[in-house]
């Protein structure tokens, strides 16, 4: 039978990454060999994930129970349609990010990114993420979370600078709390059903009293919601992600929260199919969407703005899961695949902006569209895709979710549909504002505006318009209100005012794009190895649009599998699962 050979592939994404991590650590003295190992490992993971996707689609879930034990004793790894798709998308994204960081490492001379540690840690992260997608066992899921979290602790505090240690502390403590909650939930689940195999838990959960299973569900949901950054458990995210190196932020933003979303999706459909908590999820989704995007609008730094949009768009996926219909789940799965690629490519492009313009603060930038048209295009496409402009994949995903919401028909679902339209419009506003400030106006205008900003302790309510020629002959007024200065659509807080003051101070080392251009202190060209992976990932996101039909068909089938449960249960447990 051909499937026998294919099930042997299931543990390989995890094994190869772990072995590669070991090899990369051993080769830390030989950077060229280390790079080769990482690239080869991640490329083969992409191929394996592709094969698993086809196998899972044609022949049903591919299951291997480790150590040759019967299921329930040994740990099962399951690659069903959902897991295989997640695995493939994450493998493609991690490969692109790795190539990008190779390009960046060459220019940065390891100042803030010691490559010898970076590669092994990155591979451990990939192993953890793959294991989380494949795991058919609750404790194994915990172990894979710990693997990817540990790697992320190291990557986030890479170089140990003051900003990273500050952000890393919050990130680590929050995740430790969620890990402890996860352990408590595992203990509670084991005490209640006496097994940790997800399929067996699913069968036995039906026999538990309702209140017991409700407690277990709440425990698991809270745990995974911290990882997935669902409001109100999302506040740690926008503060910790932006300080890391660009490729690290990119992979975190793309993958780590989605692992949490995947876990929620899996637990809700497999273990608690008759979930009484769908309303709670829908409310959480609404709050996540709106509060996240309102945070994004208030930001004056591209990285922080994108971190907030990341939070808000988690809401779309939770919306789909909360609907708990085939259409809703399918939309959620499609949206996860779309959002992983789009968010990662946006952060990679922001890394390009940082390398080209010396900063990601909107205060210091302008005229990038003329200065670096390639970066302009690379930012514009995923930014519009994020906002859901037709015909791109973001639009397809959002329309799918809204149709599912309309089909559901309950008033709460309709509120969610309205909320997601609003969130989408506000996303467009946030990225358009960024586009206008960072790409459209000229560096001179940016400099003039920064020069006209008042000192933080100056509290004049309305200020004279900034010097320099404003576009369209209109001169935006500056309004000082509650510690913020509003200029047109842009808002600058205390920190920006401080930084604007530093710009006016000639002795200070801080300079904005205009001054840097005058001093000719910026690289004229970025390394091709940095631009190409970012461009490739933007290409992948467009490809998702192009194959939107077949992909949506696939996610439809995956959603039906999830709702029926039998494909998963019978693949793991054999005849026992057919009961």
């Amino acid at each position: 039978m051909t499937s026998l050979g294919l099930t042997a592939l299931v543990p390989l994404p995890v094994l190869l990454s772990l072995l590669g991590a070991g090899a990369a650590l051993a080769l830390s003295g030989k950077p060229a060999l280390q790079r080769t190992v990482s690239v080869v490992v991640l490329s083969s993971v992409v191929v394996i994930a592709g094969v698993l996707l086809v196998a899972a689609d044609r022949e049903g879930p591919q299951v291997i129970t480790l150590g040759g034990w019967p299921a329930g004793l040994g740990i099962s790894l399951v690659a069903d349609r959902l897991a295989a798709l997640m695995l493939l998308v994450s493998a493609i994204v991690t490969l692109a990010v790795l190539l990008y960081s190779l390009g960046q490492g060459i220019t940065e001379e390891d100042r803030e990114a010691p490559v010898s540690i970076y590669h092994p840690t990155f591979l451990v992260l990939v192993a953890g993420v793959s294991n989380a997608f494949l795991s058919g066992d609750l404790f194994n899921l915990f172990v894979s979370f710990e693997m990817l979290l540990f790697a992320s602790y190291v990557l986030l505090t890479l170089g140990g600078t003051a900003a990273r240690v500050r952000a890393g502390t919050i990130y680590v403590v929050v995740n430790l709390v969620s890990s402890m909650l996860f352990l408590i939930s595992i203990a509670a689940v084991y005490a209640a059903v006496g097994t940790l195999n997800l399929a067996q838990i699913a069968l036995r959960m039906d026999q538990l009293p309702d209140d017991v299973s409700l407690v277990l569900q709440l425990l698991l949901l809270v745990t995974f919601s911290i990882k997935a950054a669902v409001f109100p458990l999302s506040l740690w995210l926008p503060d910790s992600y932006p300080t890391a190196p660009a490729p690290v932020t990119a992979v975190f933003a793309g993958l780590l929260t989605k692992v949490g979303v995947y876990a929620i999706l899996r637990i809700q459909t497999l273990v608690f199919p008759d979930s009484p908590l769908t309303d709670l999820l829908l409310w959480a989704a609404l709050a996540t969407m709106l509060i996240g995007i309102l945070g994004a609008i208030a930001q004056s730094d591209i990285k922080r703005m994108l971190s907030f949009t990341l939070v808000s768009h988690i809401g779309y996926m939770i919306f789909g899961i909360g609907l708990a219909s085939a259409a809703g789940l399918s939309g959620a799965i499609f949206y996860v695949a779309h959002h992983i690629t789009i968010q990662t490519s946006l952060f990679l492009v922001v890394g390009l902006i940082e390398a080209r313009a010396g900063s990601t603060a909107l205060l210091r930038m302008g005229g990038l569209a003329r200065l670096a048209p390639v970066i302009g295009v690379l930012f514009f496409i995923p930014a519009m895709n994020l906002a859901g402009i037709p015909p791109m994949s973001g639009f397809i995903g959002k329309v799918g979710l809204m149709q599912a919401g309309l089909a559901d028909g309950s008033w709460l679902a309709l509120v969610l549909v309205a909320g997601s339209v609003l969130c989408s419009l506000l996303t467009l506003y946030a990225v358009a504002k960024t586009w206008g400030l960072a790409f459209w106006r000229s560096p001179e205008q940016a400099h003039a505006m920064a020069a006209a900003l008042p000192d933080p302790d100056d509290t004049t309510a309305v200020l004279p318009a900034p010097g320099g020629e404003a576009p369209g002959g209109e001169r935006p007024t500056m309004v000082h209100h509650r510690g913020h200065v509003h200029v047109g659509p842009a808002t600058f807080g205390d920190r920006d005012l401080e930084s604007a003051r530093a710009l006016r101070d000639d002795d200070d080392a801080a300079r904005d794009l205009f001054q840097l251009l005058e001093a000719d202190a910026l690289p004229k060209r970025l390394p091709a190895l940095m631009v190409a992976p970012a461009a490739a990932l933007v290409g992948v996101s467009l490809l998702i649009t192009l194959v939107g039909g077949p992909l949506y068909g696939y996610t439809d089938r995956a959603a039906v599998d999830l709702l029926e449960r039998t494909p998963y249960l019978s693949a793991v447990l054999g005849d026992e699962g057919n009961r």
Partner: protein
Amino acid sequence: MSVSLTLVVTAAVLVGTGVYLMLERSLTRVLVGLVLLSNGVNVAFLIASGRAGEAPLVVDGRDPADMADPLPQALVLTAIVITLGTTAFLLAMAHRSWQLNGNDDVQDDIEDATIRRLALADDVSEGYEIEGHGDDDADAADHPEEDRG
């Protein structure tokens, strides 16, 4: 199943003290809190394993029904190893924080700090007051009912 109350109380006390310490500012206290919390969770696993029994070894003539459940013990072992790694990492981070800042306090979230600064600067807002700030007499006149605190 019947549950040993001693274990439940032990776990609860450990988790409670652990959570209390994790709410502290200093990273070393957070670390001690984490260790207590994880030990509490490990005790919870022992509760989940049911009653005590013989060593789970396959020997002829021994009834599996008399054995203790070995799985939670294996889980606890894994959890202990992971906690060990986490403790080492947190210690390193506390040390680095001490090198950089002279203390190991957990710093404010940027957004929190902004909001706090806003609140401190904002004399007009009626919804927020901070002790020892602003024109106390005027505040007291505006909010006589809050003057007692």
